[in-house]
């Protein structure tokens, strides 16, 4: 197992290998993402029963929750990729980290927008300074910070390293932000407006959610791969294998 992991790691370090292997993965990932999305959405929008309190507005959950969860784990992945670059100088890791930032930020934005829209019918307002909302907003700012430093740094290597350092500092801080915000909010404000605690959901409601979750993750993988391939094309444009591929 360890050997296999090590081998995979070394292979992943090779842009050529990554480019060629993902060539074969893309259609499958696209199919899986598409089919799960269609199934999840059909089940969620058409077949799941309406919530007894919120009515049909709860159907926003099928995009809101997967996006929120993904936005958080994408940040972790970005930080890990950044750390790999800082420690082992693996170019592929830097490209992956660079590419995750805008995708993660997009999902973060989706979670925030859908949450805000959902808030209007349920809470009567677009925005409250609730713990989860606030920490999600801070996550968005962290993403923006990483993207901003990436594009501001002049040298390419510098931009990768700076983004990685910032992402790592952010990782230490995310739990602190989350904890502080939760603690602050529960003290300042009664739980009138907090999100529903782990609802014991009806399976008909839960299944579409799980399917959408899978779909979101696969979509994310697909987007990361697509963008990373572009990075590879650009950075390896002078290598013979890219030229050969172009000529054929």
């Amino acid at each position, binding site marked *: 197992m360890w050997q296999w992991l090590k081998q995979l790691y070394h292979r992943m370090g090779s842009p050529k290998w990554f480019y060629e292997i993902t060539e074969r993965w893309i259609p499958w990932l696209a199919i899986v993402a598409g089919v799960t999305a269609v199934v999840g959405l059909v089940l969620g929008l058409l077949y799941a029963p309406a919530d007894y309190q919120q009515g049909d507005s709860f159907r926003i959950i099928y995009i809101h929750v997967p996006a929120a969860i993904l936005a958080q784990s994408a940040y972790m992945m970005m930080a890990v990729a950044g750390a790999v670059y*800082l420690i082992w100088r693996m170019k592929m890791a830097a490209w992956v980290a660079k590419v995750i930032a805008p995708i993660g930020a997009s999902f973060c934005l989706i979670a925030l927008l859908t949450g805000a829209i959902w808030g209007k019918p349920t809470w009567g307002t677009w925005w409250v300074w609730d713990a989860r909302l606030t920490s999600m907003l*801070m996550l968005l*700012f*962290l993403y*923006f*910070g990483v993207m*901003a*430093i990436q594009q*501001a*740094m*002049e*040298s390419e*290597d*510098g931009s990768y*390293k*700076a983004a990685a*350092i*910032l992402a*790592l*500092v*952010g990782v*230490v*801080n995310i739990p*602190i*932000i989350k*904890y*502080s*915000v939760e*603690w*602050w909010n529960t*003290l*300042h404000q009664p739980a009138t407006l907090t999100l529903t605690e782990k609802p014991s959901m009806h399976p008909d409601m839960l299944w579409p959610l799980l399917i959408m979750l899978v779909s979101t993750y696969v979509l994310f993988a697909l987007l990361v791969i697509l963008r990373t391939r572009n990075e590879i094309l650009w950075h390896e444009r002078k290598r013979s294998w890219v030229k050969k591929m172009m000529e054929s």
Partner: protein
Amino acid sequence: MSLVIATVKRDFILAARNPGEWANPLMFFLMVAALFPLAVDPDPTFLSKIAGGVIWVAALLATLLSLDSLYRADVEDGSLEQCLASGESMYAMVLGKALVHWCISGLPLTLVSPLLGLMLHLPDEAYIAMVLSLAVGTPILSLLGSVGAALTASLSSGGLLLTLLILPLYIPVLIFAASAVYHAGIGMAYNGQIAMLGAMLALAIALTPFAAAAALKLNLSR
């Protein structure tokens, strides 16, 4: 080590020769706090409720602004390049610079904060909590800030980018500190929050210099 000590000394001389360096954050602090009553509502009971929060927001912004020049001048005139070229530990250098920064920004803020408390009708019970939270909290701001300053040191429009990078990281400090002052004001215990700030300070001292030193190195290897 001798270079680090020399740098700390030099930075104090520079601050003494250029009083704006420590006087300006102070004035900014006072003025932000003075803007509030003007923009919002000068009613004393209302002010006394928000005083702690406003003072902390003002302290945070004042620190943030003074951070921009922390490394920029040194990068521009080549003296940071000399530090790196000297082969001395950048970790110690970063800690030294953060110490000086705190002495000329956070410390004066802490010392004048009671004056602001008066202006904003801070409840009498909250003074100690305010000074204590500033004394423990502002060093965290200097340390976290030095990471941001190091990351943006060689960028032309670094000042505001720094804000973007660092502000989310400041949120926990702000929350705990403001809540300490608030709780003290309504007569509740606040040692939990102060202890939390203390823990964050310890963590910041241990970790941030690594990040800042790495960031400086990459800013210099052009």
